[in-house]
Structures are given as C-alpha cells and as structure tokens.
C-alpha cells in the first residue's frame, strides 16, 4: 500500500473509525495462476457479507503515473466516485486515452506534467492506453467493495478489514472477468487466504509485460 499517500491513508482510517468503533485487522491474500505461479496485478476485493458492516470510505483520487513508458501501476483499484488522476512522470510526451464509455478521455501530456483527472462514476474496468506507445496499457478497476487491493510482484496483498464475513472477488487482466473463489471469515486478529485464478498465458495479452517487476511504482 505504499502507493497510497500517508495523508490519504490517515483520512481513510479516521473515516472508517468514525462509524465503526472496531479496528480493522490485516487480511493477507496470495493469488496464483492455475500452475501455482504467483500472480501479480490481481485485484482482490472483499465484499461484506450480510451481517458484516463496513463503513464506506470517503471518495478519493487514485494516481496513474507514466514512467519509462510504462503505466504505473499496471492495475489499480478504485471505488465508484473516486477520481483517476493521470500524470506523466517521463521526460517524454505521452498521449493517454481510454475508450471505456464511463471514463472516456484522451489527453496529451508533456514531459513531467500532470494530466487529466478522470471521474470514475460507476463499477467497471477502464482500459487505458497510450497512443504514442502501443505497449502501454493500464487498467483502472472500479469495484463497489469497501476493502480491495492489488497483488504485488510476489502475488500477495495485505488488506485491512474489520472482522466479519466477506465474499472474496478476484480479477486479473489476463482473465478479464470477476471470479468469486469463496467466502472469507476475518477474525479480530485478521485472516490469510490463498487463491488460484485461471488466466491466459502472458504473451497472449497485448500490452502485458513479461517482467513481473514492471507495471509497479518505481521507488
């Protein structure tokens, strides 16, 4: 969660604490492909089951940076109402676009320039490309779940969720559809779970990167 800015995290925590006095517990989720390989860039969302109450987090702005002709992150997760802030961190021009109807945009950005702020009003996957660099591709996955995250290079993600019952939902660019591998009980001390996901081979997907390190924020 290093991508989240500390003020934003604190704000979210404060907001969560306000309606719910309970403290959130860490939930560790590991995702692999069917062969057991760690699967980075997988979206993990926890949808509270009936009886579990998780206060809705406040709207926020998620940032999509472009560095070394790569969208960073390759996959980011947002909730309806959030805003996508595109920026160019490269020393070259980029022309980002998306033809996804709810978040359609097209913007040329000079070197090291901020880009457009795109509203993400509804649930869906927004594919973002660069018209100058065909290899660049990013997904902004808008999901209506209070707890969600994206697996890191080792295919793992640690989420913060109040104890209770949740439905686990998984999405991956090479799978391109939501998977619900099952329910997850989060204890007061947290939980951990592993899931495997059926995905297309890497090379089949245009714009994907063979290097698992790619598509992640640079230090």
């Amino acid at each position, binding site marked *: 969660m290093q991508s989240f800015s500390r003020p934003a995290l604190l704000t979210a925590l404060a907001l969560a604490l306000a309606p719910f006095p309970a403290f959130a517990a860490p939930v560790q989720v590991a995702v692999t492909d069917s062969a057991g390989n760690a699967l980075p860039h997988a979206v993990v969302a926890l949808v509270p089951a009936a009886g579990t109450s998780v206060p809705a987090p406040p709207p926020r702005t998620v940032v999509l940076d472009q560095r070394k002709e790569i969208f960073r992150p390759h996959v980011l997760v947002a909730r309806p109402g959030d805003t996508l802030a595109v920026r160019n961190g490269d020393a070259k021009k980029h022309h980002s676009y998306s033809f996804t109807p709810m978040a359609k945009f097209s913007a040329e950005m000079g070197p090291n320039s901020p880009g457009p702020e795109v509203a993400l009003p509804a649930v869906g996957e927004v594919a973002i490309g*660069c018209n100058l660099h065909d290899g*660049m591709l990013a997904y902004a996955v808008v999901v209506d779940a209070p707890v969600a995250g994206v697996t890191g290079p080792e295919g793992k993600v640690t989420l913060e969720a109040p104890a209770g019952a949740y439905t686990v939902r998984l999405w991956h660019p090479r799978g391109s559809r939501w998977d619900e591998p099952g329910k997850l009980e989060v204890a007061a001390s947290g939980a951990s779970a592993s899931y495997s996901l059926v995905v297309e081979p890497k090379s089949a997907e245009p714009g994907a990167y063979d290097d698992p390190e790619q598509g992640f924020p640079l230090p």
Partner: protein
Amino acid sequence: MRRHGLSFRGRVVVLLAAAIGAVQAFNAVAQYWVVRNAVLTRTGTELARAAEIFNGRVQVATEQLGETARILSLDFALREAVATGEHETALSALRNYGQRLNGARMLLVSLDGHVMADSQPPPSGPAASFAYRSLLGGPALRKGGTALAVLDGQPSRLAYVPVLAPRAVGWVVAVLPLGAEDAAALKALSPVDIDVSFVWQSDDGWRAAGTSLDQALAATIPATAAALEPAVPMLRADADGDAVQYLGTFPVAAGSPPVGLLLRHRADTALEAYEPLVYALLGVILTGLAAGLGGGVLAARTAARPLGQLAKAARDVEAGRYDLPTLAGAEPAVPADEVGRAMQAFRQMAGAVSDRERQVRHQAAHDGVTGLPNRQELDRLLAERAGQGAAPLSIVLLGLARLAELNNTLGHGLGDRLVARVGDLLRDAAGPGALVARVADNRFAVALPAGEEQAAEAARRLVGVFDAPVALDGLAIDVQAGAGVAGRDPALTPRELLRRADVALYLALQHDHGVTTYAPGLDPYRPEDVSLMSELRAGVERGEMALRYQPKVDLRGGRVVGAEALARWTHPRHGFLPPDRFIPLAEETGNIRHLTRWALSTALAQAAAWRTAGLDLGVAVNVSARDLADAGMADLVRGLMGDLRLPPRNVTVEVTEGAVMRDPDAAVAVLRRMADAGARVSVDDFGTGHSSLAYLRKLPVSELKVDKSFVLKLASSPTDQAVVKAVVELGHALDLSVVAEGVEDAGAFALLAGMGCDLAQGYHMGRPMPAADLAALAVGARWDAVPA
C-alpha cells in the same frame, strides 16, 4: 552404264558418304536429344526453384501487407471507431486504408469472428462470419498474422491484425487477391521467360486466377494443372507448342482449398540458348559428310582407278590401240589381286586380238595370190604417204593382156601361180622404194618416187621383163603386158593419179603401144563432166537449154523445107556448151531421156508455131540409142503430134545407124511405134555404122541421111561422090528420101542436086540458128544448083 545411274566410283562415294552421314546424323540427333532432355530437366529444376522463390516472394509480400495493415490498425481514429462501435466510421477508414494497400479488400471482424464491416463485399453480400476465424485468437491476438487462402473464389493474401483499444477489440483483415499483376510481377522477377499463373483447386477441379499468359493459353490452365503432379516438372504440349510446366503449391490457411503456382517455360525458349549447339551439331554433320565424301572419293579412286584403267584399255582396244599404255603403267602398282589378274588377262586378250586383227587386216589389204597390197591397200598407203607429206609418187599401171584366155587355157591353179610369178618379177624389177600392188585381176600398180620421165623409163623396163616368156612348171608362157604412166602431180589425189594411169594403160593395150604416158587429150573422162551431168536435168528445167534449127533445103526447088533441131546449153558457169560436150555424157548417164523429151516437145511446138504462121516446115529431132529403149517415147511423139495437129510429113526423128544396131530388135519395135504415131524415121550418119541391110529393110525408115564425112569433100573426092551416089540410089531403090549433111559449098550442093539427092543440110545453107531466123530464111532464101 552411265545412263543407268551412278558409276562404280560414284556409288562407293555415295555409299560411304551416306554411311558416315547417317552415323553423324544419328550421333547429332542423339546428342541433340540428350542435350534437349538435359535442358528440359534443368528447366524443370529452374522452374521448381523459381516456384520456391515466387512462393517466398508471395509470403514476403503477404507479410508486408500484414505489417502495413498492423500499422494502419493502430490508427487512433480507427481504434476509437472500433472501440466505440462506430462501424460506419470504421468502414470508411478501412476503405481508405484498403486503397493505400494496393486496393486490398478490408474486413472488420469482431473478436468472436463476426464480420462487422467489409470494404468490398462480394456480390452475394457480406458474409456473417469470417471464413478463416480459426486464424484469429490465440497467440495472434498480440501481433496478428498473415496467410494464403481462397476467399470468395479468389486465392488471396490475408493479413489480420487486432485492433487494440488498447486491448484487442476486433480484427482488421486485409485481403489482396493474387491477380494478373502479381503474376506479371513474378514473371518480371525471373531472369528467364517464365509465365506465372495462380491456380486453386475447387471442388470441381483446378481453376485459374491471375496469370501472365494470354487469353488463349489461359484457357488451357485448368487442364494443364490437372495434368500435372505438384512439384514434378513436365514437358507438355499446349496451344503454343511444347512447354515445360511446373505446379508449385502454397501453404494455405487451414480450411482453405489448395492454392497453386503454375509455371510455364516454352521449350524452344529453353532451347534457344542451345541454338549454337544445334549449329555446332549441324556443322559436325556437314563436316562428317564432307569427310565422308572426301574419304569416299579417295576410297573410290583407290578401288575404281584400276577399273577405269581397264575401261580405258578396252576403249583403246576398241579403237585398235593394242599397246595399252594405260595398263602398262598400272600393272606393277596392282598386286596379284582380282583386279591385277583381270588386267593381266585383258592384256593377253588384247595381244591375241591384235594378232588376229593383223592377220585379218593383212588378208583384207593384200591379194591372196601374189601377197601384194590390193587396190584398197594401195589407196590407203598412198593416202598415208600423202598425209605424211612425203614426196609424191608417179604411178605405172601394168596390165596383162590375154590373161582370161591364159586362165582358160592353163586352168586357174596355174593361172594363179602365173600371176604370183608376175608379181614376184615385178617386185624384183621395181626395186626398193617402189610400191607394188595388184589392183585388179590383170593390173599391177607400181608407185615410184620419181618424175614422169623416170616413171616412163621404169615402165618400159617393167614391160620389158615380159619380152621373154615366163617359165612356169617347165612351160614357157608368153605374157603380153602394157603399161600406163601417170606422172606425179601434187595437186592430184592418189586415186586420180591411178585413174589417169588406167586411162593411159587402156590406150596402151588398145594400140599395142607398150607404154603410154597420160595426157589430158587422151582422157575421155573429165571429172567436171560428172557435175555437168548432175546439172543437166536442172538445166533443162531451168530453161538453160535452147534449140537451134539448121535448115534442110530441097535440092530441086532450092527452098528451105525443114530444119534439124539441135540442142545448145548455156551453162550458168561454163557458158555456151556445144552438144558434143554433153550429149555423149547424157547418153551414158541416162539423162538423155529428159533432154530428148524436152527437145521433142520444144521442136514440135515450134513446128506447130510455124504452121500457124503459114510456114510448112518439117522439124527433125535426134533420138539416141537410149531413147530407143524407152517405150514411152513413142507415146510422147504420138501425144504431141495429136495435140499440136502436126501432119506426119512435118515430124522426123533422126536415129543414128549405130544406135539402131546396138539392140536392133528393140530399136525396130520403138521406131515402128513412132512411125505408127505418124513420125518419119530418118537414119542418121548413114554409111559410118555397120548397118545391116536386113535390118534396114525391116525398119520403118522414110529417110537416109548420108554422113557428112562423105559430103564435106564431095567436090574433090571421086570416091565420096561414088559412095554418095550409091547411097542415093540405094535410098531411092528402097523408096526412101536421101539427105546430105555437111554441105558447105555450092559445088557439093550442085553435085548432090545432080545425083538426085533430095535434101541438103550444111553451112552452105546455114548454121543452126534461132527459130525466127530460120523462118526468115524459109520465106526469103533460095539456093540454086549451079554446076561447078
């Protein structure tokens, strides 16, 4: 031999040349076929290689199409249009791109294979789904790909690329049919002339797509493709002749009918490069033929030369040359083979023939009795001498008198030996340098290289040999000999010389002169007479003859009562010819008949003319002994007298006493017929011949004509007067009138008148003259008998 075809040498040459030529031709043809097959095989290999290259070329082009399509597919507007579902926009963009891609047909295909847009929909309408959807998806999702496939009946290059927006949202498929331009481009690519056709195999056989062939040949493509096995070159005849054909195949998309590449290379084009080889082979054939001919000529010469020599030798023998110079040189060179033996045999034969011929010739050229050359041989020898330009010879012709009697007396055996002895004596007496020949039974010719005088001397010596009797078998035989001499004369032929000697000998024998030398005056025969006789008849027809009339005068009245018609010949070259130049000749040659007929016709016509003019003049025409054998002569006289209405007293035929006596019976018959026809018959030259009074009595004679030899000197010769007087009396006793010829003076005229002679003829009254002069004389002249 030559008429029937080639000579032996020719046949050898032809056979050898034909054999070598055949071998060469076979060789050349075999070489040509080997080369041709090699060329065609190589052409096939080249076609296979070309097919590979073309295949690669098509693939490269297809990949280029794919590359371009991929770049185009990344167009932002297209992506947007596709991603936002604006298909009309997408289609117009595709159309635009299609034009950029050499007019390619562009399809927009959804990820699940549905055709969403088509820039050139087929006539049947756009297909619902893309035929080769299996190509799409899988690894292709990233970069797309290319393939060759038959789409809507056209073998086409397909390039399919995903539309990334930025994820794949659909497919752009570019379709470029393999057309005639592509075929032409491939054809242009090849250094050799290869025609390219794209074919594909439908359910009912191969079909043609683009081709570089012309229309006529394009029609044959399906059949050709069907006949070919893929990747196996084949030499095949089509509408344009022999061609090497090759069917290559393209890898095609799964589910596509096979697509092929049909290559065609004309065989003659393939062989064109080998034209020099063909010429070289032709050269080889011709050189071989020439060598064959040369060798044949050489071989034939070797084999045929002896035969040719034999043939020439045979011709030599034929021509009478027996020394055989051709064989003499050839024989040593010829080994004892068949030809050599034949030559030897031929030479022996030639020798034998030569011997026999010498014998025959000797017999033919020599007299069997004396062994002396005969007449022909003498002629030949003399002609040979003359031809060699040797000194001319004089000829002594020695004749034996009484040889026939001797033969009869002694018998022919002894007679022959006598003649042989005479030959020997003559040969001995003539001495060396003289040529002695027996030219007739009783004639020996001695040719001497001497002048006339010496020859005459020699002749006397030769005749003198026989002054003494010839001793034979104990008999002393008296041989009488005479000799004629003809002196040498370079202008004369030997034959003429011999003739002259013969004339001289004739006279010598006749007059017992011993030796007579030829002189022109002695010669009754002159060569020019011969030509004269041949011209006589033509002369008669050409009117060169004319009649002159010599008056006959009545001795009692002194008036002209008639005339004797005498022929004159004015020859175109010789001029005037007197009768004695041609009448005797004409009698001898028989031409007298024509002359007599002409004279009768002309004279009788003249008599008729005189009668018409009121002159009663008789005309007398001479008839020769020959004419008396011509029964037609009397008919002619009869016819003429009838036609001209001449009374009998006006026509007289004069015939000499001698002529009548030669064949009295025949003469009597003809003369009688003439008398019957109405002509008077007069006996000419009466008194000179040995006329028989018996015949004279039988003859139908009306007149006697006293020969002029009795009349010319009548006045001075009492003997002649007596003879003439006797004749006149005889004539009158036989009731014949009497005419005197040769009356040249008034004295004779008077004497004749006194003797009672009826008519006179002679220069005293007139020479022979033209008819008109005679008529004038008859009218105005009169002679009186004045006693001398």
